[in-house]
């Protein structure tokens, strides 16, 4: 946008300079333009010390234990070793920083690229197993029973095709789903914990231990 304004001002200056000898009169030039909003999304997994998995428990909470695929301020949200039929909370899962020049605010969407998969025949239905929970920058008091909201699998076009364990996917939307957050401010910090309710048949004696994964894709759009 700045480059456009600079170009416009330069062109305007040149035009005025060239036109000056032809006429002694002066006038005004009205410039008007629409410009695209600039918006930036920064996603930070495991955004605070104390991130990790806590078994859903009433009363005194056990210490969080992150899985091996997680790391502070990055990597994956790795619940680690969990058991079928049990619920878990993952603390400090995702920090989303949105900054925009659009005074109208923004909509934040968050959807799964696909259901949980082990890359083979085993799967877990995403909106029956993974939930997001509003959290805070620090001092998180959520438990595995805190109010959570399901992640749905997108109806948009996902690239690359899933399941794909290594390449972060993108979603192309024909129409947007319901927003996770609809902000009237141009910028915001959003903090989320995740809850995992593991289906009882996600792993059985016949399957043994199963490594599941999915991708949650966040999209921010100016209003």
């Amino acid at each position, binding site marked *: 946008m700045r480059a*456009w304004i600079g170009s416009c001002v330069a*062109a305007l200056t040149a*035009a005025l300079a060239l036109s000056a000898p*032809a006429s002694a009169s002066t*006038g005004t030039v009205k*410039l008007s*333009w*629409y*410009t*695209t*909003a*600039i*918006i930036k*999304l*920064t*996603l930070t997994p495991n955004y605070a010390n104390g991130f990790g998995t806590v078994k859903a428990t*009433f*009363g005194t909470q056990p210490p969080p234990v992150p*899985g091996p695929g997680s790391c502070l301020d990055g990597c*994956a*949200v*790795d*619940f*680690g*070793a*969990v058991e*079928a*039929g049990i*619920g878990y909370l993952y603390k400090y899962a995702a920090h989303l920083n949105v900054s925009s020049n659009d005074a109208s605010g923004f*909509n934040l969407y968050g959807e799964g690229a696909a259901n*949980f998969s082990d890359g083979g025949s085993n799967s877990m239905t995403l909106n*029956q197993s*993974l*939930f997001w929970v509003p959290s805070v920058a620090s001092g998180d008091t959520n438990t595995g*029973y805190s*109010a*959570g909201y*399901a992640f749905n699998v997108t109806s948009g076009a996902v690239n690359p095709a899933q399941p794909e364990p290594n390449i*972060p996917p993108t979603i192309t939307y024909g129409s*947007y789903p*319901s*927003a996770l957050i*609809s902000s009237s401010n141009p910028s915001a910090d959003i903090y989320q914990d995740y809850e995992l*309710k593991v289906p*009882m048949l996600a*792993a059985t*004696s016949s399957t*043994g*231990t199963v*490594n*599941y*994964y*999915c*991708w*949650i894709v966040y*999209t*921010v*759009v*100016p*209003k």
Partner: protein
Amino acid sequence: MSALLRKCLCAVFAAAAIVAVLSGPTRAGVAQSQRAQIAIALLINVTGVGRAPIPAPAVPVVADVSLRAKGSAPSVDSVGGNSTSTLVAQQTQSAVKVEAEVSPNPAATLLYSNNAAVVMNGTAGTTISQSCAYQVTVHSNIISWTLRDGLSGNPTSASTSFPGPDVEHNDYQATPKPTSSPFIVYPSAWANVVTASNVQTYCVDLSVTIPLTTPTGAYSTNAVYTLYW
């Protein structure tokens, strides 16, 4: 001697009282132990009396920059722009991988539901219901077990909540009971659903009386079932 005995008895009763308090709703009684616990997520989408914060559809933003030198022909404003000057609203995406290493749990088949999450939609000031919203099964060969239930908290949105007892349940095997019962909310002691034996499955009808003043939003809680014997 008797004073010493009284002190000992007092200490024992005090310790028992502390244990009972700390155990909270997860303890059904002195003779029973908790064997399994499951939670079913309840999501109640409420259309309130206030404004509905339904996100507006993304509107393409167009750019149409016109510069006209003095004396030149006036341009024609164009809302839609043209193919060379139109820019769509910028969207930004980022993805995070979520992983879990799931191992079998022999106890997972002891107490389970056919549905991990229930979604209900309603308007403030009305009562909504869902027949057999989920089933709860106890799969045990124990002669006498007890199933208890309750909500983990009041149905809560990003900004507010409404009372958990406004959510009622009717648990039955074949025919619904004449009336439903309001859910107990943690940290109150869980309510007794049934004492039975062996394998049993219960349908749970849900009804929610949404208070008239409830603002628009998504309200979430968990229906928690705990098995004891």
